[in-house]
């Protein structure tokens, strides 16, 4: 294996890295230093103020780099395996690498001129994207951990990037502290797994574990590994960072955390538990639980659905509301993994993908409204219908899809997930979890409708006090496109389901 071959197979990652460096250089060379007030008024800081031209160039280069990377993805061979699974190219991995790149592309379109030091900000988004690509394309524990860390560190930075907002710093610190603790757990868990199985490749781990029974040590390793991922996907009770991060971070960072990071985490979590830990599946059936990872995930799912939905009921800030709803949705999505098998995994992948597009659109609307009205509390959205019918319509699509109403993608996604969960297990053992998830959906409809009520129905004086929402060409186009995707995948889910099922055919162990 020559380095040239390696470069060919890792072309998407290489292209994104190169783009990140170029964007960084452009940002550094074109910005001018000025004195502006810092977090504390007593301490003026020198801060780079970006010129419009430089931000446009930065965005353009970053977007172009991502498009080229997607192009490079499509020209990769369909199967390749480097260094015992460190870099695996398979239809499944390629599909989700493309999804991650597309989500990063959307994020960059939405990010336009949100923060100072725009070049650096875009460069960090691109670095996070590389982390996601590594995460998705690797089937080896060490490499997965590196991907997790690269993503995590970039996301901590992105969260804390808005230096004019003290909330952003707080969110970044919280995210970092929780995240690094969770990483430590994961690393410890992975080392235990390595000790038991004697290898770090996922397929080899499965073989190693098949020979032994579930010892307490192995179980500890599994639980610790899952802790790290539960943190990543914001499953309760490891969700405490999410509300602050979603609310405090620059909107585009929050969108990326909620979409790209989540998709990649679910893909790799699915591969770890279903492929690597396949032999110690256990069972989460009611009254017939068998120790293994699936009851652990089932408990996480149940907690997430309950806590996420109940706490979301009382939120008055839309971003916090989305954060708690994200916790609940992590719970729904876990249902597919608990169910296991090809149907369960494909349901999880479908759901997490459409969820990512829904949230990126919803955060896009939040970004526009925040730019125009200076806030993202619910009252900032009052009468949005009159101010911008397009945004209001798109928001309705996103909220109703999250609530799981037809003809939107969320409805089909839930049906697919719940039917997969219902089917698995002996004698419909997962009915308890399905019923709980439906109960959660019922609760969630209330708060999503409250959002829509504020947007569509609040009228009169208070709406006039707020400025109208101007036409933000690129943002609106991106948001409308996301809404179109959600609607399209609701009406023609076959488009994605067939692809996911086809790529899962290649994983024989399922």
């Amino acid at each position, binding site marked *: 294996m020559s380095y040239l071959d390696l470069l060919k197979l890792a072309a998407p990652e290489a292209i994104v890295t190169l783009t990140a460096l170029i964007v960084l250089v452009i940002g550094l060379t074109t910005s001018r230093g000025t004195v502006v007030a810092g977090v504390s008024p007593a301490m003026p800081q020198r801060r780079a103020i970006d010129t419009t031209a430089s931000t446009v160039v930065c965005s353009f280069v970053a977007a172009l780099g991502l498009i080229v990377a997607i192009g490079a993805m499509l020209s990769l061979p369909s199967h390749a395996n480097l260094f015992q699974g460190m870099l695996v190219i398979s239809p499944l991995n390629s599909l989700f690498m493309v999804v991650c790149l597309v989500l990063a592309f959307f994020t960059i379109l939405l990010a336009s001129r949100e923060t100072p030091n725009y070049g650096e900000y875009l460069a960090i988004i691109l670095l996070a994207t590389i982390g996601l690509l590594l995460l998705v394309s690797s089937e080896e524990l060490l490499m997965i951990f590196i991907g997790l860390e690269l993503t995590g560190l970039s996301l901590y930075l992105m969260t804390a990037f808005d230096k004019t907002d003290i909330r952003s710093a707080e969110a970044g610190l919280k995210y970092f502290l929780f995240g690094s603790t969770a990483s430590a757990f994961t690393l410890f868990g992975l080392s235990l797994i390595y000790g038991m199985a004697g290898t770090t490749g996922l397929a080899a781990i499965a073989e190693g574990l098949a020979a032994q029974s579930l010892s307490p040590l192995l179980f500890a390793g599994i639980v610790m590994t899952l802790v790290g991922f539960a943190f990543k996907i914001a499953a309760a009770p490891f969700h405490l960072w999410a509300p602050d991060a979603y609310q405090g971070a620059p909107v585009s960072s929050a969108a990326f955390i909620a979409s790209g990071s989540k998709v990649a985490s679910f893909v790799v979590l699915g591969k770890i538990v279903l492929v690597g830990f396949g032999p110690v599946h256990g069972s989460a059936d009611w009254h017939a639980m068998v120790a293994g990872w699936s009851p652990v995930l089932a408990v996480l799912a149940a907690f997430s659905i309950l806590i996420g939905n109940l706490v979301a009921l009382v939120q008055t800030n839309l971003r916090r509301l989305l954060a708690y709803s994200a916790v609940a949705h992590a719970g729904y999505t876990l249902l597919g993994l608990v169910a296991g098998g090809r149907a369960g995994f494909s349901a999880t992948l479908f759901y997490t993908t459409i969820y990512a597009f829904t949230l990126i659109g919803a955060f896009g609307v939040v970004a526009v409204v925040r730019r125009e009205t200076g806030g993202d509390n619910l009252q900032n959205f009052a009468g949005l219908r009159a101010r911008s019918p397009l945004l209001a319509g798109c928001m309705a699509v996103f909220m109703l899809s999250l609530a799981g*109403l037809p*003809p939107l993608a969320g409805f089909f996604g839930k049906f697919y997930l719940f039917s997969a969960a219902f089917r698995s297990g002996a004698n419909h053992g997962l009915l308890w979890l*399905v019923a709980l998830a439906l109960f959660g959906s019922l609760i969630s*409809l209330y708060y999503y409708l409250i959002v829509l009520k504020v947007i569509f129905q609040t009228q009169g004086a208070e709406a006039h006090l707020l400025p109208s929402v101007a036409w933000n060409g690129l943002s609106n186009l991106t948001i409308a496109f996301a809404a179109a995707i959600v609607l399209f995948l609701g009406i023609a889910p076959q488009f994605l389901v067939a692809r996911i099922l086809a790529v899962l055919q290649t994983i024989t162990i399922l």
Partner: protein
Amino acid sequence: MIAWTIYITFAGAVLLLFLPRAFSRWIALLTTTGTFAISLATFFCHDLDLAHFTTIVRVPWVPALGMNYHLAVDGISLTLVLVTSITAVSSVLFSWDVANSASGGQLLQSGNNPPHQSASRSGWVTQPVDATGCPSAAKRVDQRSNEFFFWLLLVVGGSFGVFLSADLFLLFVFYELVIVPKYFLIAIWGSTNKEYGAMKLTLYSFFGGALVFIGIIAAYVTAGSLDLNELAQFRFTPQLQSWAFPVLFIGFAVLAGIWPLHTWAPTGHVAAPTAGSMLLAGIVMKLGAYGGLRVAMNLFPQGFQMWSSWIAILAVIGIVYAAAVALRQRDLKFVIGYSSVSHMGFVLLGLATANVLGVSGAVLQMFSHGVIGALLFAVAGRMIYRRTHTRDLDELSLMELNRALPFASFVFVIASAASMGIPGFSGFAAEITILIGVWKTFPIAVWITGAGMVLVAAFTLRALKRSFFDTAVEEGQNVKGVTTLNREALEPITVPEKLGAVLLMFATLAIGIYPKFLLDRIVPAVEAMRFLKTGG
């Protein structure tokens, strides 16, 4: 051809969003009239096999999961499509100048009821007073009329979809599709306590939907198919049927207003705008009953046998209880709302009998109540409330409305007579068929229901008398702070209102005089259903 009812309706809804507002009501009228023409034409088209659930469209949708875009029709579906289109046409006619409630002008001599106040009651003042200092009511109305008709057509189109779906998943998609438009119709254009009513209705519907969801998944996962005709042949284990049937049936019956899960209905009906109430009573409540019949009973016949007497008990309680509650209401719309629950109790009772007469009568009652309920709400919400701005029976009784609005009082008399079950109207034909069916299965229920019917007559007559025919007090005399009506200020009944009312009255009379027209198509379709064979 009947499938085009769905396509036309949704196409009309989409068109509404893109065309200027001036056209909106014409598009809505054209669309609904088109569906009415189609469904009526299908009734007279004899080359369709209405005795069986005959496939008309079948296209693969998500082959990986066995979902098809599969539409079918039989006599039951066609009857319900017909009543849906009739109600839709008349509800468009009754919202011809939607939300333009401001144009009523000064009605009460002392009543401080300028356009602005009534507009804010109807719920959506987005424009400030314009430069001339006069709030331009007509303009404000037109601002959202296309949105109003958009949601309205979504409800109608979704209902057509439910009645014609032969794929369980497709049916559920359409069923859930109806939920959100209802919320917006009520929360934006409604009146009295509209946000509460809208949210309650939506959450109840969604709760029912969640139960249905479990039942559907259970059937789908067990039988591995979503095709209703295939599922109807599948033999589910009695153990599955014993729990899946009640889950599925209750889930659907929430929307049909089964006691004790009926409480969304009166509040929802009262809060809704007139067209919304008409759709709720005329169409949406039928979705639940239809789902119970087509899905729950037909798929799980043994489960149905186990639970049918419980359903009958709930239905009888519903009939009597709702009628008794209606007797005590002061708000005219609440009276009608509870009467809807009572009438839907007859439908559920008919279904529970599990014999041809009872079930056919239930379907006929669905048609009949759709028409009569819509008519009652049209009179109460549109003809009376929009002109007098009150629905309080005590206040109405002072207004001597039979002289002020002779046409409205004529319509209300007809509607009340039909609602009470006077022979010659569709209500009588349907209820007598149901009761004969009930006599065969649950004789005791007939006696209780008979008492309930007396209550129905009592509250209907009471509402009729208080609203239209009470002795007037001296003009100008002030009772309880309410002043008498300035009769000349009442806007006369408009032509669209007359047309809508005539259409509905014609429907109830025609079916009352010649029920065979519908029964000839309903009975064979009912006879083809599985639970009858197993039951017999």
